[in-house]
């Protein structure tokens, strides 16, 4: 009986060792692929950064108004970083192929099918962020010029509403959340509108009515003595 146990143990050990021996080259290949991709990615990012700096990419982005949506980082830095991580991702996929070609090709196919959605979502998010900042700035300036005391609050509200909308659209493109995103977005927007309606209807009822009465009873205003042009 002990002979049988020893034999079973030997067989299982040799199976595991054989499995590890089978996996080890693939694992080393993955590490090598990752290392090579990292070096290549770093090199590409370095060249890209130097090239973008030489053509004043940051200045041009600044002039086009695309600089202030990556606070703390220059647009050329962002492009170089993105390129580096794409090369590393490619290296990872090559490395994974060493384990099981059929599995990884299926994974790669699914990943590649997802790429257009990812790009569209990123694009929607980027445009949303730029638009939100632009419109919020416009609202802030207009509100200050109209002497509205809560100009900053108004501008921040507009900005976050647009950001939430852009994020919801991006998530929909990614297929994340599905109906939850729709529901959350509807609830959030509805909540904001309801809050505003309640705030004005209940909280500021007297103030609004007084303001309307004053407006109705106001005599024809004397023209200001200031003419700017």
């Amino acid at each position, binding site marked *: 009986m002990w002979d049988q146990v020893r034999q079973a143990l030997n067989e299982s050990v040799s199976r595991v060792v054989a499995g590890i021996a089978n996996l080890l080259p693939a694992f080393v290949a993955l590490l090598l692929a990752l290392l090579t991709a990292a070096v290549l990615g770093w090199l590409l990012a370095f060249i890209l950064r130097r090239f973008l700096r030489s053509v004043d990419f940051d200045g041009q982005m600044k*002039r086009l108004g695309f600089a*202030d949506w990556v606070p703390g980082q220059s647009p050329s830095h962002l492009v170089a970083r993105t390129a580096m991580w794409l090369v590393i991702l490619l290296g990872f996929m090559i490395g994974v192929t060493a384990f099981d070609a059929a599995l990884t090709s299926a994974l790669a196919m699914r990943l590649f099918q997802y790429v257009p959605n990812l790009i569209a979502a990123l694009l929607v998010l980027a445009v949303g962020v730029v638009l939100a900042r632009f419109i919020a*700035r416009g609202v*802030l*300036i207009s509100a200050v*010029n109209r002497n509205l*005391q809560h*100009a900053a609050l108004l501008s921040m509200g507009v900005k976050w509403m647009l950001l939430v909308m852009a994020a919801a659209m991006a998530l929909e493109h990614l297929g994340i959340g599905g109906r939850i995103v729709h529901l959350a977005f509807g609830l959030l927007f509805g909540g904001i509108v309801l809050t505003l309606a309640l705030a004005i209807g209940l909280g500021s009822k007297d103030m609004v009515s007084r303001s309307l009465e004053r407006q109705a009873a106001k005599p024809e205003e004397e023209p200001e003595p200031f*003419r700017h*042009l």
Partner: protein
Amino acid sequence: MAEPTTVSPELEQRLAQLSGAEVAVVMPALTTTESLREAVALVRRALDGLAPENRTVVAHPDGALADPAHPTDGAVLLPLPFGAMNGFPGPGQHLAEMYRAVFRLSHRLGVRACALVGSDPALLSADALRRLVAPVLEQNFDLITPLYLRGRFEGLLLSAVVAPLVRALYGRRILFPLGADVGMSSRLVERQLALPPAGRDGLPVWLPTDAVCAGLQVGQAQLGIPLPVRRDPPEVSEVLVQVLGPLFLDLERNAASWQKVRGSQSVPVFGPARWLVDEPGTVEVGRMIDTFRLGYRDLQGLWSGVLPPATLVELKRLTVPAPAFRLPDELWARIVYDFALAHRLRIMSRDHLIRAMTPLYLAWVASYADEVATALPLGVEYRLEQVGAAFEAQKPYLVSRWRWPDRFIP
């Protein structure tokens, strides 16, 4: 040299009938046959002895006369290829096209002098119109800008920015560089036709600056009429966009010229030089100061990208309640220069940039109004002279920042 003319076949036929002219008087504000008849009589009186009547063309908007081919009282009439203007010209009225059409017609007619009367001709005296044309014909002037009668709180943007900037940068003390009524020589017309039209739209701030940059002679004529006002004036920030946008673009275009200019010289005035007509009184400026303080609180993030830290510190001092609200002229001049530079560098959307300047401009208006409200006319003129002198004194700051925009300014 001149660009090809693009006129309608009817106008082309009319131009062919005319064998040239000596003077053209363009009156875009005419609307009826009656007003045209009165304008013709005015032109006849104004140019008596200056130019023969049959060599004087009165150009009117298309449609101001039922039959353009039919002369009124023997005058030579010419319909213009645009409709009547609605009061003081605004950017929405295709000003650039109007000016180009006037230049082209003057060129085709080969006139020695062209008077563009943008104000209502019914208000203008024959003497005033004569002052727009005579210096061009008799003394070789190339551009005559208008002097209007105005109150101390009228044309504030001209007093605060346009006139001081033109004085400091181009070296000519022109009081109304944006006037609706001008006299022009054939040299100026040819020069304008030779220049690319791109960037010369909007209010014609480029007309005097192009003339000065080309070394042409500029004069001023007292018209004795109130400063033309727009019937529905837009809000302040919109006025700033309409005026400062073209002005800053012009500044960018002529950077090579104005950097060489040192000091300034007065521009000859034809007719009485006095222009202030109102009486001292009190004004309420509290709301403007409130807007400035609100701007300092909420727009500081935007301003810090445009203005250096020292300027922001000085502005902070203004937010503290004090017995009198005073924005120093030197500080105001540096603010305008910083915004002009930010406009050139496109630090943010140009529209946003100029609108973000509104609280600062209102601070200047409040400070100025508080100072001159009870001043005598000479005191007001002296005050505006100080503003111009401050812009001149601060010009090295602009030149330095323009040449080395990345250099740190404390």
